[in-house]
């Protein structure tokens, strides 16, 4: 009996450390995808609830990060596709849209003019990703915000590596064209 309770406590501690480690990553991806803080929190919470329920079926065939991000990607996709649910979630939670990302740049040693230009470029990328198709946006964010390589993105999204590359190419082209004269 003591062993059983000890195992339960250990499992709980392990899962809590998993939450602490990966919550920011899951939340960040959801926030960048949905641009809504409340929706992103809901997605992150749902992600860990699902992970907790399914942890018995997790066979360690991939890393914890890949497993959790796969759940998050599916939740974001469901959220975007279910327009009715999205409407009600917005109504209930008074969603706070994230519109301006440019002022979060690292000012560093740049001159004010250089900072202003960089801020405009970053904002242009943010605007461009908003209008990308869902799959392109997902691979773009996983690559350029989460620093994931093509194989990991393929594992997370369930796409083939070649498909990931194609979506990434198209996303980059769209972003580049959007930035246009700012470069």
């Amino acid at each position: 009996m003591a062993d059983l309770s000890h195992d339960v406590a250990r499992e709980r501690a392990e899962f809590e450390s998993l939450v602490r480690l990966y919550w920011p990553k899951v939340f960040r991806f959801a926030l960048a995808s949905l641009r809504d803080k409340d929706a992103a929190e809901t997605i992150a919470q749902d992600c860990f609830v699902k992970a907790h329920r399914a942890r018995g079926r997790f066979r360690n065939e991939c890393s914890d990060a890949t497993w959790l991000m796969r759940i998050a990607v599916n939740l974001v996709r469901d959220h975007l596709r279910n327009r009715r649910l999205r409407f009600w979630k917005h109504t209930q939670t008074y969603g706070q849209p994230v519109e301006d990302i440019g002022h979060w740049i690292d000012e560093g040693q740049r001159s004010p003019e250089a900072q202003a230009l960089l801020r405009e470029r970053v904002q242009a990328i943010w605007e461009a990703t908003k209008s990308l198709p869902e799959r392109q946006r997902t691979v773009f964010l996983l690559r350029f915000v989460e620093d994931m390589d093509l194989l990991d993105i393929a594992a997370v999204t369930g796409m083939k590596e070649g498909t990931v590359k194609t979506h990434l190419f198209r996303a980059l082209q769209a972003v580049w064209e959007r930035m246009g004269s700012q470069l």
Partner: protein
Amino acid sequence: MNSHLTTQQVSACILEEAGADIKRHLEECPDCRTELQRFRESLAEFRTSVRECSSAQFAWERRFDREETGHSRFIPSSIRWLAAAFVVGALAIGFVRDDSERQSPMAAVSADARLLTQVDTQLSQSVPRPLEPLTSLVQWSEGAEREPGAPANITEKN
């Protein structure tokens, strides 16, 4: 390669899949090199910005700390209703006060208009003190009942 890099070629560079001809062009073309460098820098800064924004939005460390110390974020529904009632009441009071404030300027304008009319009447009927002796030389054709401001219909006394 004479012309500048195409969008596809720039994307290939970003994804580290540029061929030898693209690399050669980049060595020879400062414009493309600069644009590519700026694009890379912008993408890197985009990553930083999203991460910073996300951290600020969630402040997850504080949240976990608060949960550990037993302070719940849950607010009982009764308190929420009380807060909502307070807000509605405050808004209603604001509307009433706003209306009364809107009426006061109107009343003030009306009072001003009355005062100006009185002043006009007084001024038009009164004769300045230095001219008072002259009034004995003329007479009002319609007596003192003349409308204020109307041209005086006077006749000279013989």
